[in-house]
């Protein structure tokens, strides 16, 4: 029976693929386990394999010649722990461990911002990086004045100087205008009218900013406007993954295919964010996973997404917010070195995308820009729980489903486990404070109603 599942064509592909990956023969044997009779190789460690050192794929920045690792470390989700006084704080030991391991295995790009991790990210990243030679890493941080009420030049400069202090550096490798894209007026208000962009250009000239760029979330009009301004941008940070390549929601974002092509025309390298869509592409629905597993039974959905994001030549680095060592190790494996997505795999991903866009996901990437909610809701946790149920195929379409009892129990118990009652969707008052903050332009209160309605249907055991 197992033989039937392993057609000759696939077997060849896999063999080739693994050869390129450069993993030892033990892995190959393990991967072919199902097709071989009487094998004697134990699977211990073989299935995952070593984390390769010195094989990371690097891309060259055409403007400064920087040799940037394809895997970039996103510092917006550092591990947290509970302090003795009950409050949360960054787990600095864990951060140091992750950063050391990453640098040891070839990662050299670290992306942070003054507002990340409740404002603690720059400090924690700075402490971890201070322990390494300055020429071993590139640091990226941002002008995060999009949420602040005060947008004067003085405030902008103060934020920039503070970033240097927190990061304990005297120059910044990559400085970004944070989250550009909601409107041209907003862009002018933040960077042009107050003269902040002129100041930053001056800093670039002085060498304290080595690369000046911007991160984009929003509508095409703004993207075109900013890209075509009379300034050479050194890089641009965009959202790219196989779903957003051609199926970005036009109300929220622009197809990555377009963004990537436009950037290439202007010789602006792309830094990639959301390669996993906030983790959603690592937890795809069963049927989508089956498509991928048929080709590479040993590869995770996440590794497909990372390979996809790293494939375009114009991509400088792909950011991943890695909280767990296992995620870091897996991503290191994927990019050491990168095996670009081929034609056949691309076809598979198109099929996967079709399944994803038809699923009931709330388009949340869990970036938490919307939080803290003034009324205490844990917005990203609510959406995450809902999306997980979609991924697991446990979102009930109607109450007569054969799976009803089980799916109901799992949804309700899981909901209480992942979100405290007082922070659940039914406490949303629809004040709309969060809405303008969402880079994915999600109508958060409306999606909260959706989760609440579904929860109530299950709680009251209503017919639907």
């Amino acid at each position, binding site marked *: 029976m197992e033989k039937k599942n392993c057609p000759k064509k696939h077997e060849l592909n896999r063999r080739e693929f693994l050869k390129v990956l450069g993993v030892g023969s033990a892995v190959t044997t393990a991967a072919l386990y199902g097709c071989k009779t009487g094998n004697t190789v134990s699977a211990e460690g073989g299935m995952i394999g070593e984390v390769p050192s010195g094989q990371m794929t690097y891309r060259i920045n055409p403007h400064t010649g920087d040799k940037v690792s394809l895997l970039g470390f996103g510092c*917006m989700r550092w591990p947290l722990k509970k302090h003795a006084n009950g409050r*949360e704080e960054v787990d600095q030991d864990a951060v140091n461990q992750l950063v050391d391991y990453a640098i040891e295995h070839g990662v050299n790009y670290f992306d942070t911002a*003054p*507002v*990340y*991790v*409740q*404002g603690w990210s720059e400090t924690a990243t700075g402490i971890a990086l201070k322990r390494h030679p300055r020429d071993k890493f590139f640091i990226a941080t941002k002008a995060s004045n999009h949420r602040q009420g005060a947008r004067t030049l003085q405030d902008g400069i103060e934020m920039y100087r503070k970033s240097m202090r927190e990061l304990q550096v005297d120059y910044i490798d990559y400085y970004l205008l944070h989250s550009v894209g909601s409107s041209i007026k907003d862009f002018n208000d933040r960077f042009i009218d107050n003269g902040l962009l002129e100041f930053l250009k001056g800093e670039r000239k002085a060498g304290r900013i080595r690369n000046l760029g911007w991160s984009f979330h929003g509508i095409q009009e703004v993207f075109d406007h900013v890209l075509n301004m009379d300034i050479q941008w050194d890089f641009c940070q965009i959202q790219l993954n196989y779903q957003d390549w051609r199926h970005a929601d036009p109300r929220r974002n622009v197809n990555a295919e377009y963004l990537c092509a436009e950037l290439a025309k202007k010789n602006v390298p792309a830094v990639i964010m959301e390669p996993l869509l906030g983790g959603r592409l690592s937890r795809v629905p069963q049927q989508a996973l089956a498509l991928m597993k048929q080709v590479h039974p040993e590869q995770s959905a996440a590794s497909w997404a990372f390979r996809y994001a790293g494939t375009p030549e114009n991509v400088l680095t792909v950011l991943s917010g890695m909280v767990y060592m296992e995620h870091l190790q897996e991503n290191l494996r994927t990019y050491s070195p990168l095996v670009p997505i081929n034609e056949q795999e691309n076809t598979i991903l198109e099929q996967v995308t079709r399944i994803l866009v038809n699923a009931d996901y709330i388009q949340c990437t869990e*970036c*938490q*820009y919307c*939080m*803290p*909610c*003034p*009324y*205490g809701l*844990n917005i990203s946790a609510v959406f995450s729980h809902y999306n997980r149920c979609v991924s697991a195929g446990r979102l009930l379409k109607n109450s007569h489903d054969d799976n009803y009892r089980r799916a109901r*129990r*799992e949804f309700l*118990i*899981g909901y*209480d*486990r992942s979100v405290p009652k*007082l*922070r659940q969707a*039914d*406490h*949303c*008052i*629809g*004040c*709309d*404070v969060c809405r303008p903050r969402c880079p994915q332009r999600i109508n958060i209160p409306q999606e909260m*109603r959706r989760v609440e309605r579904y929860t109530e249907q299950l*709680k*009251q*055991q209503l017919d639907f």
Partner: protein
Amino acid sequence: MLKKTRVVIAGLFFLLITLLFLDFTGSVHMWFGWMAKIQLIPAILAVNAIVLAALVLATLLFGRIYCSILCPLGILQDLVSRISSRRKRKKNRFSYARPKNLLRYGILGIFILSLVAGFGIVVSLLDPYAAYGRMATNFFAPLYRWGNNLLALLAEHGNSYAFYSTEVLVKGWLTFGIALITLIITGILAWKHGRSYCNTLCPVGTFLGLLSRFSLFRIAMDTQKCTQCKACEKKCKSSCIEVNTFSIDHSRCVACFNCLGKCKFGALKYTAAKPAKRAKTDPQAEQPGLSRRDLLSLLGLLTLSATVKAQQLQVDGGLATIEDKKVPDRKTPITPPGSLSAQHLKQHCTACQLCISACPNHILSPSRKLSAFMQPEISYERGYCRPECVECSQVCPAGAIQPITPADKSAISIGQAIWIPDNCIVNRDSLPCDSCERHCPTGAITLVERDPDHPKLKIPAVDKELCIGCGACENLCPARPFSAIYVEGNVRHHSI
């Protein structure tokens, strides 16, 4: 043999009744809810003639088996007494004691008077079933739930949904104190004197004793065979066997059958007997030995205070602190749907806490008011009376909360929502909010424009004809610590 049967049945009953108070899923109530309903005082309060007749008949036939196998407080004392007997040189620690008739009949008298006069506090303090219920709710249920939460934690790690965690709360510290004192008193009495609580203080024991002296089956002593070794007397936890005079006080015998196996000469038998001689009794009222008032004033010192926290925001992520809600000052208490009125509840409730521990929404707590002392009262700080739930009405053994269905409940108005403009965040923070309107299950709340200049700012208008007082609006209102909309109880429930 008789003793073993008694121990097995009693153990089973005790376990299941305790489980009634521990269970928070509602499944045990469905199967074993009747066990609470056959308790004597609840049956009297519910005017459950069948149960009453059955209990009277059983006692007339077999003696006070009720005390031995049905009463959870009695069995708890047996447990304590048994442990006490395990001590060295305490195996045969009992001896005959004279009945304290003045005390027992005095208390029974006061109890009956209170029952008739509707002085609920005395009834609920003396009802052995309710007393046990308070202990189970306050001491055993938290332990049980902690245990469950531990399993839930493990289940969560194992990605299983077999267990889910639940809140562990002591719902009223005053009631907790009463339960603790009751436990200490019964515990000490049982440790030292076996069933002396049942034969001096407990009105149910005294009442059944009146019947059991005429019971058909009873322990009989064969004076021919008796060698006066006193083995039985030393083993009698009711201290009702007087070997010197070859007499057994059947009004105090709880039919535990411990004595039967102890007699090596076969002088004791449980058998149908001729009517016994009447013991001299003089039922006269007297003040109870316990000064409850003193206890109450002492306990009144125990109060709860909630902490108030501030909040701040600026950067990505993080969670705003959520302040605890505070209980509003209600003119009329809210009572559970099915209880008809505060008056009806007061008259029938024995304050056993079964409804309070069964409520999955944590809205019931024991009242601190003297007129409804320890009886359930609704407040919406932790949840609201959810539309699909009728748990309390299903479990009530005393008919204080009549059984209703969710459909019935959706049309029973237990209170009225009242809006407090100064607390409302629409007024306070000038933010739009539709929480109360959106969550009202009967559509009793409509949002109306506050003023023509701000079309987005809308304030609630309550339709009193449609409001059922479920508290969804109050509980989910974002204003804290006091909600901007709260429920005032209805003196009498009515349908909408």
